[in-house]
């Protein structure tokens, strides 16, 4: 899968990702982007190398020698584990009557049958998430518009198939759209259907007229 991915996570976000200080749901969106983006794969490895060097340069924290010895003896008494490094492979899934190749990171979340909730040209299926963080698939049929909305938190959208357009441009496979509470945007599709991964850190608030009525439904919707 070679695409010219144009929209990447900021370095700061990648730094937080490699330290595991992001919310797991956000890390998932980054991990799926990495599956699709060789550029960021390389940055990930570079950042991890820097973090490793930093770790190796830390001053030693003190612990009694006997405690270290005890830990060492315990560890070396354990058997080897025959682990094997796996290759990261995309996998195919039947979604809305077409077979779509998805990034490997999403596989653990797609073991069960998806429950789609349909509304106009848009279908969503919740994958995971509790409390403030919500992970879903978003299937937007061609020539459809997602009602204009702002967010109370961070919204990360990763395009998995097709193209989506908003006020700031066009996004294709592997592109990451990150919207903060300052953004209002109206994503739409044009001549082809679009499948996205959507991660929300807090519920959405729709802005426009009738679509305000959608607000109570948004726990189903996103």
């Amino acid at each position, binding site marked *: 899968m070679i695409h010219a991915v144009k929209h990447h996570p900021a*370095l700061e976000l990648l730094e937080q990702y490699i330290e*595991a200080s992001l919310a797991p749901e956000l890390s998932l969106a980054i991990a799926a982007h990495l599956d699709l983006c060789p550029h960021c794969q390389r940055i990930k490895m*570079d950042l991890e190398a*820097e973090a490793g060097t930093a770790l*190796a340069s830390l001053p030693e924290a003190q612990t009694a020698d006997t405690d*270290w010895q005890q830990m*060492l003896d315990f560890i070396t008494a354990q058997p080897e584990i025959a*682990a094997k*490094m796996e290759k990261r492979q995309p996998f195919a899934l039947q979604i809305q009557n077409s077979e779509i190749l998805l990034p*490997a990171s999403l596989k653990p979340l797609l073991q069960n049958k998806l429950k789609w909730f349909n509304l106009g040209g848009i279908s969503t299926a919740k994958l995971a998430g509790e409390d403030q963080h919500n992970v879903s698939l978003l299937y937007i049929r061609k020539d459809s518009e997602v009602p204009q909305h702002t967010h109370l938190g961070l919204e990360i959208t990763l395009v998995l198939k097709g193209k989506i357009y908003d006020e700031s441009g066009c996004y294709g496979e592997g592109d990451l759209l990150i919207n903060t509470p300052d953004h209002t945007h109206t994503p739409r599709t044009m001549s082809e259907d679009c499948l996205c991964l959507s991660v929300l850190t807090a519920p959405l608030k729709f802005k426009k007229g009738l679509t305000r009525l959608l607000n109570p439904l948004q726990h189903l919707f996103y």
Partner: protein
Amino acid sequence: MLDPTSVQRHDVSNYQRLGIQGSMSAQPTDNAQWEQVLTFIAVDRDKHAYSQLFSYFAPRLKAFGLKMFGNEQQAMEMVQDTMLNVWQKARLFDASRGCASTWIFTIARNVRFDMLRKKQSRKDELSADDLFFDGDYPEQEGTDSNEWDLWLMAEKVAPHFAKLPAAQRDVMEKVYLEEKSHQEVSEELSIPLGTVKSRIRLALDRLREAIDDPRS
């Protein structure tokens, strides 16, 4: 026990003579040697080699754990789980993919993530192994053409140079201002060649981001 007839093992003996045994005097970034030590552990289950690695990394992992968790007990749990993984899965270490310290960092990070997840008793649909994939992605081509674009924008770049992390700025100054080769910089700073290259890439990315950012 060390076998003096093996050439590679002989290197480890040298290593001990140099006094690099995890004491305060050890060279923190002497990664080429830690990589060899990991190989002995993987191939021979060499407890002596492992204890050297342990005495260097365990106290530093503890410092890392204290910083991340803020308490002794969880820090030590992280150290033990991390070092246990190193012992049990040493065969997974692949020197062609990075330094020993990088590998150990990624294990510690994953251990910490899973500890936090467990503490929150979240359903384990999101595990560290899935989120922080540590294997091979499909092959990619290198592109250094970006360096050229950056040269052409030297004036715009200059103000951001000072804001680079010190380690990256050092490397960038030597390469771009003093016009030294990557190899020369590697020798001068006693850091692996790969580290020189990765610092340049990270610095270039940071600069590119700074230039693209409309707020700057």
